[in-house]
Every structure is written in structure tokens, then in C-alpha cells.
């Protein structure tokens, strides 16, 4: 076929991680970035609250504190060497973004402004620290735009609206990817020496989610199909504050600015669960607290939601109770206009989707599926590693939400994902270019596109007895209800079974659109296949881990069990079954201890 492109490095995905990788790789090697969405439509653009770095612009802060908070936040499952690496790089990473023109909010001195975020503390006092560098409540949008703009400036080659379908492996080395050009339906082979995956997460497998339609786990599934493992897939983050029913995210920044959670009885309940940092405890803790309130009958209107309150009078009242002060020591206050100025998008979401004005009314919220902690195992240079000895798979890299370095362990702290993208995106780009300059192209097989074509053919030739939309709806419900915030043996067994059943039914699906041009029917169905595969792995790994840690909390094993489970899960798909292995956690300075906020 004619559509063969040759590049030293191919980056799949153009979100924060992909663009950063593309930018750095293209400085050293001929690079292409392919993305199924226009780059500016990647999900990084949805990130609201901020990017974490111990700049110390408003109060004392140090990378060591950031490291410790992240380790603690991860419930000691994060690899401490990687975490330390990331937190040390954080300061330069944020400054680099500023130098690229990112319009951060400013302090009166003209420096980058920072706000408190869940789980980020001053290690000496235990009080929340201002660490999240932000640009209003659209920090991710600004990062995405800025990186895309810098890529344009540096003339990075983009293939927009090309969806990768299959990773090519030749002689045990990555050799490129096959992608479909959405506008024509034609397959293209990208022949490369190094491939970087930056395809984002898979939060769309859950019913209530803050994630984009595009979050279907393509990257993870593509690797799984090639017999490569995924790491820590049982760890999925539920964000405490999603808009009721819709799941649209209300950033933690709202609580950072002083917002509090209120149950159906009008009581503030977080002090019960996290006496020191209260509403700014880490996300798993707050999500569970909300669920506990709901279960014990204190949901709003007897239903399954609670309220988030950022009305200025409440903020001032509770800030006074908490003894919160401004940097100069005066009591913390806020006005309606300030709320509007600091959280414009949040206010807009509430007005549009709920008809509620947060400056004068309460926001109904419920935990929402949010972030994929697990993913493609990599080391801190973004190189994909495939076993318990961290053996590197030559030529293959991953960064961003699809990767598991692992810096987030059992639970990611807010603001650490954007940081992860920038730091590991950069290093994977550098490494990939370095590698590509040392090796030769692998020879491609005669028909490189055969695999991708046959995947499509299967979807086109099903019996048509089943409807993909129904299968998707059911999967989302099963995953949210049975493998959600609270988990137990019985539910998860039934989830594994049900997902298997859905996979069987999926074989009966037939795509109705037979055309080539923009066949979104075909691609959405293909994505559903990915989601089912990822969902199965998640359910399996979750069932397998018999303890509670971070985002994974089991009613039947409510305690963390460092004796048996202080280890990463690796999961392979072999002959249609999920097989599980383990990998030790890297512990350097911080010995596991009980996690209290």
C-alpha cells in the first residue's frame, strides 16, 4: 500500500504528554505526532485546578515535602525514586511552561500564583500548603494550548485525526504503528524506530465520569493485545466532587479556595474523617467519606449526593473556625466577585448544567470516575518495562495518564497528573530521540496493515444481533456499581462474569455504517472493544488484591496489608485470560506508616 510514512519517532496522542514528548523528540530526531482528535481537543484541556510544584512563591515549600506528600498520597504504593525525581523536576518544569508563555495567574509581586490542593501540606505544621500553580480554573487548557503552540512554532509534524489501531513489533522491538485517517478511512503505516504512547486514560468505562468520550483506553488495549503487561490497573481514582448525575468535574480548587462539603443535614462532615486538613484530605479519603455519609442516610434529600458550598459567607465562617489566614496573618476572607474571578468555568458549568449559581446556592455533587492510576508500566525515563525486573522493551515509550511510572501509586494527588505529563512527557521524548539515533529501522513485514484490517473486518462482519450502545451502557453500569468506590468479593466476581458476558455479546455486534469517510460508528465500536478489555483487566486485578489501599477500598478487607500487598500488580492477557504477576515497590526514604489526614 502507498500510505507508508517513515519517522524516527512516532508519538501517539497529542495531549499534554504527547505534545511535550513530540516537542522534545523533534529536537533530536524526525518526529511525527498522530492523534485521533485535533490536539487542542485532548483531555488535558479539561484539567482545571493546577499543576503542583514547590515553587514556594507564597509560603515556604520544598520539593522534599512535595515528595513525601505524594508518597503518602499514593498510600506507599508509588515508586519513591520516581516520585522524588518528579518532584525535584517540578520546579523547572513549571518555570519552563512559564517561559513558553503559559499565562499563569500572578501574585502581587508578579510571580506565579499558587493555591492549596488536597493532600499537599506543609510537613512541619501538617496544614495545607499553596503548591498548585494555576491559571484560573483552566490550567490544563492553558498547558495544552501553550504546548500545541510551541509545537507549531517548532514545526512538529502533526497527523491530526489519525487514529492508531495497532502497534507494530518486529524482532521484539517497536517498529511503528498502523493508524486510520478518519477523513478518508484509509490505513496508514507509520514506520518508526521508537514509538511513544500518550493516549490518556480510560475513564469512560464508568457510568458517572468526568472523562471525555475519547477516554477509551486505546493505548493500554493495544499493548495488551501485543502480550505486554499493564500495571496496577485496580487503582482508579474517584474524584469526590462531580456534578450530580453528569459527573462533570468541580475542581478541588473550589475547596482550595475555602469551599466545604455539607451533608443532607446541613452539617460539615469532613472534620470527622480528616481532623487536620478536613475538606482538603486526599481524594480517596474524601470520596469514601461522601459515600459513607450517603450510606448512613445523610445524603441530600435522602438521595445519593451531598453539597459543595462555596458561598462567601460559608467560606468565611468555616475559615474562621479553622483558623485559616492569609500569608500576612490576617483572617481569610473571600467575596462573591473573587469566587467568580478565581473559578469562572466552574460557575459557568453550574449555571449551564444545573441552573445553580454557586455564589448564592449549594452545588449538588457526587463522586465521579476521574483518573487512571494504573497503565503501561514504565521507568522514570518513560521506557516501557515488561516484567518484575523492569526489563526495558526496546523502542517503546509511554507517558501521561496511559502510563504507570508509578508516581501515583494507589491514589494520585491533585495537580500531580499535569506535572507527570510535563516531566515524563519530556523525558520520554528525549530518550526516544536518543534511542532512535542509535538504532536502525526494523524491516516491516509485507503487509503491515493486515492486523488492523482484520480487527475492522471482525467488527464489520458480526451477526448484528447485539447493539454496541447497549453493551456500552451495561458495562458502564456494571463497572461503576460493582468495581466502584467500595468493592467486595461478591460484587467483583459478578463484575468479572458480567464483563466476560458482555465481551461475548460484543462478538455479535455489527457496525451499521459501511462507508469509509469518517466512519465514527466503526471507530466507536472498536473503542468499545478496547474498553471491554481494559474493564476486564481492572475487575480481575481488583478482585485479586485482597486489601484496601488508596483508591482501592474493599469492604471485606478494610485494612492496608503491607505484609502481603506492598507490591505492584502486573496483568497480562494470555489466551483470552487475565494472568497476574507482581513487581516490588521501590522504597527509598519513607517507610510505610498509617495514613491520617
Amino acid at each position: 500500500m502507498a500510505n507508508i510514512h517513515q519517522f524516527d519517532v512516532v508519538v501517539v496522542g497529542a495531549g499534554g504528554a504527547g505534545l511535550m514528548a513530540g516537542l522534545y523528540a523533534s529536537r533530536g530526531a524526525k518526529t511525527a505526532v498522530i492523534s485521533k482528535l485535533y490536539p487542542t481537543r485532548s483531555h488535558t484541556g479539561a484539567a482545571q485546578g493546577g499543576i503542583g510544584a514547590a515553587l514556594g512563591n507564597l509560603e515556604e515549600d520544598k520539593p522534599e515535602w512535595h515528595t513525601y506528600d505524594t508518597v503518602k498520597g499514593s498510600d506507599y504504593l508509588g515508586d519513591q525514586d520516581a516520585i522524588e525525581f518528579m518532584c525535584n523536576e517540578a520546579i523547572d518544569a513549571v518555570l519552563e511552561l512559564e517561559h513558553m508563555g503559559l499565562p499563569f495567574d500572578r501574585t502581587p509581586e508578579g510571580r506565579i500564583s499558587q493555591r492549596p490542593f488536597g493532600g499537599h501540606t506543609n510537613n512541619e505544621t501538617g496544614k495545607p500548603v499553596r503548591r498548585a500553580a494555576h491559571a484560573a480554573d483552566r490550567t490544563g487548557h492553558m498547558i495544552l494550548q501553550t504546548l500545541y503552540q510551541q509545537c507549531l512554532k517548532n514545526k512538529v509534524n502533526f497527523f491530526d485525526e489519525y487514529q492508531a489501531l495497532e502497534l507494530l513489533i518486529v524482532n521484539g522491538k517497536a517498529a511503528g504503528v498502523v493508524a486510520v485517517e478518519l477523513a478518508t478511512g484509509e490505513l496508514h503505516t507509520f514506520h518508526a524506530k521508537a514509538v511513544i504512547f500518550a493516549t490518556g486514560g480510560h475513564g469512560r468505562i464508568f457510568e458517572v465520569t468526568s472523562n471525555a468520550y475519547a477516554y477509551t483506553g486505546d493505548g493500554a488495549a493495544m499493548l495488551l493485545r501485543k502480550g505486554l503487561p499493564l500495571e496496577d490497573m485496580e487503582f482508579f481514582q474517584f474524584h469526590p466532587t462531580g456534578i450530580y448525575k453528569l459527573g462533570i468535574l468541580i475542581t478541588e480548587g473550589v475547596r482550595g479556595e475555602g469551599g466545604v462539603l455539607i451533608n443532607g443535614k446541613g452539617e460539615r462532615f469532613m472534620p470527622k474523617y480528616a481532623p487536620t486538613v478536613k475538606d482538603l484530605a486526599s481524594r480517596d479519603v474524601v470520596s469514601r467519606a461522601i459515600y459513607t455519609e450517603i450510606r448512613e442516610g445523610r445524603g441530600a434529600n435522602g438521595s445519593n449526593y451531598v453539597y459543595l458550598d462555596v458561598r462567601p459567607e460559608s467560606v468565611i465562617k468555616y475559615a474562621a473556625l479553622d483558623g485559616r489566614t492569609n500569608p500576612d496573618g490576617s483572617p481569610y476572607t473571600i467575596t462573591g466577585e473573587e469566587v467568580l474571578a478565581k473559578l469562572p468555568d466552574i460557575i459557568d458549568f453550574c449555571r449551564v448544567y444545573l441552573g445553580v449559581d454557586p455564589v448564592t446556592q449549594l452545588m449538588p455533587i457526587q463522586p465521579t470516575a476521574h483518573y487512571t492510576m494504573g497503565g503501561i508500566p514504565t521507568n522514570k525515563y518513560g521506557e516501557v518495562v515488561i516484567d518484575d525486573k523492569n526489563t526495558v522493551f526496546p523502542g517503546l515509550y509511554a507517558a501521561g495518564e496511559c502510563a504507570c511510572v508509578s508516581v501515583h501509586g494507589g491514589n494520585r494527588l491533585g495537580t500531580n497528573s499535569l506535572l507527570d505529563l510535563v516531566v515524563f512527557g519530556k523525558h520520554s521524548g528525549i530518550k526516544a530521540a536518543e534511542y532512535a539515533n542509535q538504532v536502525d529501522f526494523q524491516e516491516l513485514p509485507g503487509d503491515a496493515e493486515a492486523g488492523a484490517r482484520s480487527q475492522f473486518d471482525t467488527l464489520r462482519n458480526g451477526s448484528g444481533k447485539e447493539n454496541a450502545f447497549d453493551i456500552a451502557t451495561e458495562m458502564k453500569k456494571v463497572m461503576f456499581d460493582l468495581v466502584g468506590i467500595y468493592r467486595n468479593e461478591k460484587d467483583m466476581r459478578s463484575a468479572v462474569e458480567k464483563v466476560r458476558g458482555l465481551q461475548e455479546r460484543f462478538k455479535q455486534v455489527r457496525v451499521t455504517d459501511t462507508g469509509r469517510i469518517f466512519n465514527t460508528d466503526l471507530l466507536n465500536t472498536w473503542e468499545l472493544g478496547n474498553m471491554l478489555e481494559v474493564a476486564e483487566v481492572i475487575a480481575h486485578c481488583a478482585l485479586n488484591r485482597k486489601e484496601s489501599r488508596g483508591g482501592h477500598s474493599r469492604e471485606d478487607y478494610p485494612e492496608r496489608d503491607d505484609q502481603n500487598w506492598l507490591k505492584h500488580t502486573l496483568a497480562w492477557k494470555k489466551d483470552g485470560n487475565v494472568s497476574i504477576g507482581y513487581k516490588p515497590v521501590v522504597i527509598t526514604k519513607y517507610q510505610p506508616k498509617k495514613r491520617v489526614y
Partner: protein
Amino acid sequence: MEVTLKIFRYNPEVDKKWHYETYSIEAEETDRILDLLEKVKGHVDGTLSFRRSCAHGVCGSDALRINGRNYLACKTLVRDVGHKITVEPLLGLKVIKDLIVDMEPFFNNYKKVLPYFINESPLPADGKERLQSPEDRARFDETTKCILCAACTTSCPSYWGNESYLGPAALVTAHRFIFDSRDEAASQRLEILSETNGVARCHTIFNCTMACPRDIKITKAIGELKMAMVTGKLD
């Protein structure tokens, strides 16, 4: 409750001309138009094609003409537009299939205004951030909100009349950089904008401002650009 959804359909591989298809579906007042499109695609006709991703108005994928005016389908609820809903692709760009239009001309115009931060001066000696006062930062805050959805450009009669006009979205991006006190290429950008296809083609029609789902006061931003060219003042 039932709504009638009239959707513009065009399949390039079969049709010579476009047509409309009408569907009646169950919906709630608080459903997004995007939800309705998903329902039609999921249950009635899988071939219906449209773009979407974030589903809450921040990615800019699904700008469409709904009841005769540009909106984001995911940020428009049934209660905003009533029970008889017509959905059509954006005007002024070629239709590739159904509701999907060719975005290339739009992004090409965007790329013409040097849409990236330019400052070749040495960094501050301490290696830290370039300082910027909160006031200087606020000066261009509004135009940083753009998500490149194209709702503005495809509602602009001047753009309909002539697609070589850069269009409001590109001008918004130019504004974002020209009024950033840290950027150094304002003059190059103004020269680009002052050409015949630049701001001169804007006749203050306001369609763009009304269409912008991010509430950017686009006409005002363009007005500021014009005055900057005349007076040279950038603050």
C-alpha cells in the same frame, strides 16, 4: 417527554445532495443536545456522524448550528432550545459527512497569526519566571479562554462572504499574544492582521460574540486590535 430532532444528513459516498432526517426521541429538559445525538446514533441510525469528546464544553469538538444559531451541542440543553430541534453543520466550511465539517481552513487561518509565544530576550538571571503584574495578566485573560471551536468564525457573515478572511478565532488568538506584556512579536502580528484579509474585513457584526460558547467578547477584542494599529498602544 418527546422531542423532534431534525438533523442535516449527507453521506459523501452515496448522496449527491444533502437532506434532512427527522427523529422523535424521548428526552428530558436537562438533556444536552449531544446526548440526543448519541441516542440517535446508538439506537436509531449508527451512521450518523459528528465530532465530540469532552461533553462539557471545554474541548471545542461539537460546535454545531442548532435551531439556526451556533452552539456547542454539549453545552446546550433541551430546555434552552425547546422541543423542536434542528441540528445542522457549521456554515461556511465544507461538509465532509453529516455534521462533520472540514476544519483545515479554520486551523490554517489560526496558524497564520503566529499563534505562539515569542520572546527571544534572555530569561531572568535567577532562571525563574518572567514577572508580570496581575493587571498585565488580566489584560488578555479573556482571549486565553478560546477553545478553537470555530463557532465564531462560521457565524461571521464576512467569513461567509469570503473564506480568505482570517476570521474572528484567529484574531482572538492574535489578541491573546499581542496584549501579553511578556510577548515581543506584537508588531509582526499586527502587520499580518493589517493586511486586506485581516481586521479590515471585520464589520462589527457581532455574530461572533453572540456565538462564542466561552463568552469571549470577540468584537471588543477585534476593536482593540484595530485601535492598536492606529494608535500603537498595547496596554
